[in-house]
């Protein structure tokens, strides 16, 4: 079992850091699935209790890593699956946030226990030599027999998917609406309108987003809606650390809402908010 990867481009390093920081805000633990050409992160894969939503990120290795080497434990296996603290991972990569990082290596190794060592080489203004900063993030290796529990989720079907050009207003709105009502109803119509409705004993708040781009339309229904837990929605929006502003919302009637951010072509962040009974 071997894994080694290297990043060198400052822009990509910052993007990667933003993805990890987003995961760190969402949950205590995350699962890292290393494939031969793809890297996935999943948080809150166990949906039973947490107030945060299921979120996963899929990263085409070649986008970020000029060097990427993965060897599974056995030749017939396709993955290495690791569990770790997302806070630790977030902290280990936070060094990439500031400028001056030459390169960043990721290396799976055993010290006293298995860990992913994040080795950043930081260039200093005061010196010509780079300084090495090492964080060893402890990981647990998840055996193949348990992999079935950590499958990268499939994007659910939706009757209608709309693309929101700007996240800013929606993000602030959802953060405030979680105080109004424990559940939020998302209503989308085929003419590109999205309504977010929060109802409480003292007030009803209806927010309207018009003229949205339709990404996907299945069937001939004019409208579809789904109510979700407002804390989960707010946790997703509140955690976002990415520079991207565009978001796609897919609604599967009374079933789930799928949120998707395309960081770049083959780097995508997803979340699924399951429906709640009204």
């Amino acid at each position, binding site marked *: 079992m071997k894994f080694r990867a290297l990043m060198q481009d400052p822009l990509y390093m910052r993007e990667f850091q933003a993805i990890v920081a987003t995961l760190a805000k969402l949950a205590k633990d995350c699962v890292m699935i290393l494939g031969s050409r793809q890297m996935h992160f999943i948080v809150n894969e166990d949906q039973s209790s947490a107030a945060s939503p299921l979120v996963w990120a899929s990263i085409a290795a070649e986008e970020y890593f000029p060097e990427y080497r993965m060897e599974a434990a056995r030749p017939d296996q396709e993955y290495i699956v690791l569990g770790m603290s997302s806070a630790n991972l977030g902290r280990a990569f936070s060094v990439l946030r500031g400028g001056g990082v030459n390169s960043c290596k990721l290396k799976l190794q055993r010290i*006293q226990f298995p860990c992913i060592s994040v080795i950043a080489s930081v260039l200093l203004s005061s010196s010509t*030599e780079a300084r090495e900063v*090492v964080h060893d993030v402890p990981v647990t290796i998840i*055996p193949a027999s348990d992999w079935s529990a*950590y499958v990268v*989720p499939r994007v*659910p079907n939706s009757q209608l998917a709309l693309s929101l050009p700007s996240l800013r207003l929606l993000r602030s709105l959802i953060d405030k609406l979680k105080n109004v009502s*424990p*559940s939020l109803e998302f209503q989308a119509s085929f003419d590109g309108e999205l309504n977010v409705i929060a109802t409480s004993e003292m007030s009803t708040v209806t927010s309207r987003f018009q003229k949205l781009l339709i990404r996907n339309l299945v069937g001939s229904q004019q409208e579809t809606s789904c109510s979700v837990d407002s804390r989960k929605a707010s946790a997703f929006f509140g955690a976002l650390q990415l520079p991207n502003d565009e978001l796609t919302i897919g609604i599967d009637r009374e079933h789930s809402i799928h949120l998707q951010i395309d960081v770049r072509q083959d780097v995508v962040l997803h979340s699924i908010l399951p429906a709640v009974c009204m």
Partner: protein
Amino acid sequence: MKYTLEGSNARVIAKAVQSLSKVGKEMFIEIDQQSLQMRAINATQSAVGSISFKRSVFEVFDAPNSDFYCKISMKGCLAVFRNMNEVEYCELNILDNQTNLQVNLRCKLETTKEATISIIDDQNINTNINTDQMPNLIRGDHKLFTDISSNFNSSEEELTLEANSGSVVAKNYIEGARVNDKFMRTQLKLKPSEFDQYQVTKETIITFCIKEFRAFLLFAECLNASLTLEFDDAGMPFLLKIKKHAEIECLLIMSTLSPDDVSFSEDYCQRDLTVQDADVRETVSKGKNSAPGPNVTSKRKSSTSETAAVQPKRRLEDSQLETSLETPLFQFRHSEAPSVQQPRILAEVDTVVLIEDEAEQEALMLAAADAALEASMAPAPAPPNSTEVCFFNTDSSKEGRPPETSSEDDETIPQSPERPNKMRTIFSRCFQSTYVPREPSPNTQIYAPNSDTED
């Protein structure tokens, strides 16, 4: 007695108060002919910080006839010196037979702020550590140390430096020490060229508290000054010094963790806890665990009648209570959330409880040695019989270390044993097409729990 300063100097004093407030809950002030000193000691008595301002910092400096010292609450002190931006002139007065400290701040817009803080006690702390010669000395800009410190989590409690002539490595762990498998190790390797002065003649690994270190780093930042670290071996005191124009001098003395692995008996410890500096050195060289510490001696003014009148009861209790401050300064206590988390498999934590009688005896001997010193009642520090001294077994023996981790072989990790039970299948089921992943609404009441056969 009156001391006045111009606004910008007062702001520096305010910063000093803020830094010291991160060390201890009480502020000790000492004024002699040449300077005003402020000191604080941390709760575990493993660090003492002092910041001294020469009389040239002040416009009026009423030198006392004999050295003056007092103790005030840090909280009160912090409250006066909190908002300093508007301050143009600051006046400090020791009032009413030295029972009150009055601070008068003349601010912009003809606004005057005044605070009267009562003096809790005429008490002082000092240490008998020799702060002159240490085999190792490194000096660098505050930015460099801020950089180092920022790589470590704010919840971290200790910092370990591995210093030799070629490099210094800052770590949040001790190499070879067994740590919790959730603990993230961090290390930073620094080259001598990054420092302004680098003189490491004695290769060593030392561990000290990072909190107080950061408190003083903050002050160095405010002064835009460089920091000097001076240290000897593990178990010996660690010094942090900051100097600015010969007018401001700071000294932070911290105890360091003794890395020795030898199991020690309780009586050994008790003796070590109260030995003087030279003895500590000797003990350390013998490879025994030690509480490396000089003592805090508590001085009280030779019986001035006013004090006696104010606190007549204390005197009677002096001899009994003296020990509270006569116990050593430097002990390591890992009582709350140690950064190197338990359980460490190789480690044993030994808690040594001082037996009161012996501790007192020791203290009395020390007191006798300095007849001029008077003991006092210290309300804050824990009484000696509750002083816990904890040591970690740090497994510093070379043989005990796991193999070096950089070699290529170590990247190969054997497969973990398969988990016996089938677990965590909730998620996979969620994405079967037959399953509708609906949750109960958060505002509905659940009348019956899930009947999930998979659990």
